[in-house]
């Protein structure tokens, strides 16, 4: 099966027009010694046989675990209309809208997506998408370095370790100094942050809710950050923005985050969606594609890729970022998802997540030996202290059909008995109660 339409007759006609005997002649300038030493790829299979193979592999994955694992990637319900619309061939088989007149569908969709991200984050300008929440945070840090001309970045350790590790990997060859500040009573430690804040600081990075699920209002930190000429960067969980104070309201300069929770499947790690939003004055330092509205010759509204001078295909080594292909289709899914929920629905979604988590806290607190950390308010994720090693508890609960949470000991020293539990609108009351009962059984066996 090779999807090639040329018949033997047509190949002959084309070779004749080209003026060569055979297709091999078109490759004869590749010298013999540069030919492949081997090319042992199995022979092609029919669509049916490949699908059977993939069905067998998909059945090797767990498909009926009740999912309380979050850590930045959440099991939210995806309305069927998201797949139906993002699955239209005119969206998913087009490429970057270089030719505006025959891409107004994509250009308007990106413009609408940029608007949704600005409205959720409370900031002025967004871009067409970045790879994921981690690279988005890295691009924000680089923006701050460029804008401030400074090289020191303070990172609250409430920011996901996954993103911190990516940040350090990307900047290992650049002379950027990172300072990590501790989490105290579940929230960012003001004292420590202010201690390190100075005129060499390019940015302070915080996360809301942080990796422990704790919710915060960073307005105070932002004020101090701006006083010393640095930028405030916040990585945020978009569904929580249905209810929580927005980065814009806190005065944050650059908001980033992972958009997976906006109608994108978990799909074992990707494709996901990185979003970024900034204040108007920092617009020209934004990485990646941006769509703007304009008019055509008849003064009719239309949309185009704009501010392209920042981008790699124009500025090459002086570009703000090297991104070319992005996560456009995932941005479209997020746009469709938020429009389907709409203004009232998105608030209700956040409220439902919050209420389910509060119920889970109360229910888990009743399990002997289990203590829910109450030091800071949370949204839909919280930390639980278990009477024994969280890894083992998680392992035994998997056998009972629960992916019951993320053992915090993996990311934070000294927290081996702590479990991070996420509760979305998909978790029914019954599932939460059964989870607590199974935990009870596992802990006392």
């Amino acid at each position, binding site marked *: 099966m090779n999807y090639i339409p040329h018949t033997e007759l047509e190949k002959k006609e084309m070779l004749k027009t080209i003026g060569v005997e055979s297709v091999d002649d078109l490759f004869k300038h590749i010298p013999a010694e540069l030919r492949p030493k081997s090319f042992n790829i199995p022979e092609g299979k029919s669509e049916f046989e490949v699908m059977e193979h993939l069905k067998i592999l998909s059945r090797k994955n767990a498909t009926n675990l009740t999912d309380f694992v979050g850590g930045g990637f959440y099991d939210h319900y995806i309305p069927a209309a998201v797949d139906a619309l993002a699955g239209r061939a005119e969206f998913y088989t087009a490429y970057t809208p270089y030719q505006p*007149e025959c891409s107004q569908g994509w250009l308007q969709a990106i413009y609408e997506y940029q608007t949704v991200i600005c409205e959720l984050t409370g900031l002025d300008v967004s871009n067409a998408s970045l790879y994921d929440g981690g690279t988005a945070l890295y691009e924000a840090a680089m923006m701050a370095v460029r804008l401030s001309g400074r090289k020191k970045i303070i990172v609250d350790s409430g920011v996901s370790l996954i993103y911190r590790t990516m940040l350090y990997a990307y900047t290992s060859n650049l002379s950027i100094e990172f300072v990590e500040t501790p989490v105290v009573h579940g929230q960012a430690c003001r004292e420590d942050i202010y201690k390190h804040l100075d005129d060499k600081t390019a940015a302070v990075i915080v996360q809301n809710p942080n990796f422990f699920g704790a919710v915060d209002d960073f307005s105070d930190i932002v004020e101090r950050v701006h006083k010393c000429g640095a930028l405030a960067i916040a990585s945020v969980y978009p569904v929580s923005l249905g209810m929580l104070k927005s980065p814009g309201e806190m005065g944050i300069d650059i908001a980033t985050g992972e958009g997976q929770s906006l109608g994108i499947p978990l799909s074992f790690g990707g494709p996901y969606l990185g979003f970024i939003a900034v204040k108007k004055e920092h617009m020209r330092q934004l990485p990646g594609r941006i769509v703007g509205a304009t008019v055509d010759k008849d003064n009719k509204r239309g949309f185009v890729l704009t501010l392209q001078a920042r981008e790699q295909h124009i500025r090459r080594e002086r570009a703000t970022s090297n991104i070319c292909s992005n996560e456009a289709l995932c941005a479209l899914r997020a746009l469709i998802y938020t429009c389907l929920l709409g203004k009232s629905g998105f608030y209700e979604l956040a409220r439902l997540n919050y209420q389910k988590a509060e119920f889970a806290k109360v229910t888990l607190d009743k399990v002997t030996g289990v203590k829910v950390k109450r030091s800071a*308010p949370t949204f839909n994720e919280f930390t639980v202290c278990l009477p024994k090693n969280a890894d083992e508890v998680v392992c035994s609960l998997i056998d009972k059909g629960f992916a019951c949470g993320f053992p915090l000991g993996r990311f934070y020293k000294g927290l081996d008995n702590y479990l991070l539990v996420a509760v979305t609108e998909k978790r029914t009351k019954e599932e939460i109660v059964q989870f607590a009962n199974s935990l009870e059984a596992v802990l006392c066996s």
Partner: protein
Amino acid sequence: MQLIFEKSRPGRKGFALPEIDVPIAPGLTEKYCRKQAAPLPEVSELDVVRHFSNLSRLNFSVDTNFYPLGSCTMKYNPKFTEKACALEGFSDLHPLLPQLLGGGMLAQGSLEVLYNTERLLSEITGMHAFTTQPLAGAHGELTGVMLIAAYHKNNGERRKHIIIPDSSHGTNPASAAIAGYNVVVIPTDKDGFLDMTAYKKALSRETAAVMLTCPDTLGFFNPKIKEIADLAHGAGALMYYDGANLNAILGKCRPGDIGFDVIHLNLHKTFATPHGGGGPGAGPVGVCEKLADFLPISRVIRRSDGTFALDYHKHKSIGYIAPFYGNFGVILKAYAYILCLGRAGLIEASENAVLSANYCLSRLKDYYAPAYGKRCMHECVLSAASQLEQGVHALDISKYLIDKGFHPPTIYFPLIVKEAMMIEPTETESKETLDAFIDCLIEAALLSKSNPEALHSAPLSMPVKRLDETKAAREPNLRWQQK
């Protein structure tokens, strides 16, 4: 078309959530809450469906139009790979599961897909090992350059620059710069190849790597590639291969065999995963043996009992470059595509891609000046310089093609070709489609002489005429605002 925000009606409801089935707890204190709900549109599900169904119909796409966008390999994306991705076992698997004790056993299917894909890509390209983590080609370039930096650092060397031909794609210099390297640009000689004298002159102990695309962005395979590699290795530099044009040489030449040390591929180009309006893509990176230790963690390993696991204990690794294991959904589609084509299918893909590109070049060369020669690989670069004499730009020709239902080729890339038009037909387009496209380009060439105005006024059949891009840049309107 009206924006979805302009269709909003206060109080209109769309998607309904389940009723709250738990007792209501007190809310968060006001300090932590936003003042009012985000002003998202208030529309019904039918409003949303009609809006995006009609919006999609304003786009050209591979499924509805010939889309010969050079250097993007817009080949047909087989439909069954979408179905594979939607299988419950693949679409709903939490990425943190294997990091839970006992969780790895519940992700064996996806881990096997990653493991098998790495093996297949290594054999296709002649590289020692692969990581599927990079989330697009440019991200793969950044990863590759980070591996190069780690390699030199491990040898106690701090090299300063990376050599890049002037014809390379913009992401190459951007990736090198972002990873902290200077960029030394080498010009292209009159035959369209890397200027060897300038190259030899630039090469030094400060050269960390040489970044090449092969076949290059002019569509030529440089027979001196081996010599270039040997020279680089002689200076202790590494060879980086931009795999965007791999569709030209599947089974004909492998970067690993001709001296490249680190490469990236674009699954959404060569391996037919959908371009999705700009993404998602995937840019897996392959390395020679000496760079394997530096690959990003985690690594997918196969245990003696045949099960698969994630190995995080690679102390020389450059660390995380992606949150997990790459764009799994895209990788799965490429895996399915490779299994479907198999050995012979992959070779036939390149043979027919090159055949079709040369067919276009042969029929068009008398109307548009070929950038360099009479032959090409999987894409051909033509110049509209002669048309410019009648005041007709490559842009005008593109707009004429749009009116005829063809997505234009890539224009003004590579930058070194005047009024460049890069045509990449791919192997999945029929001869009658190529002929119709070629006839249309010939018409445009004749019109440039007989009636240039017809080209300047195009396109006329689209939802908008030509748009004012200067106004868009000067008065940026980058979001809708509630009046």
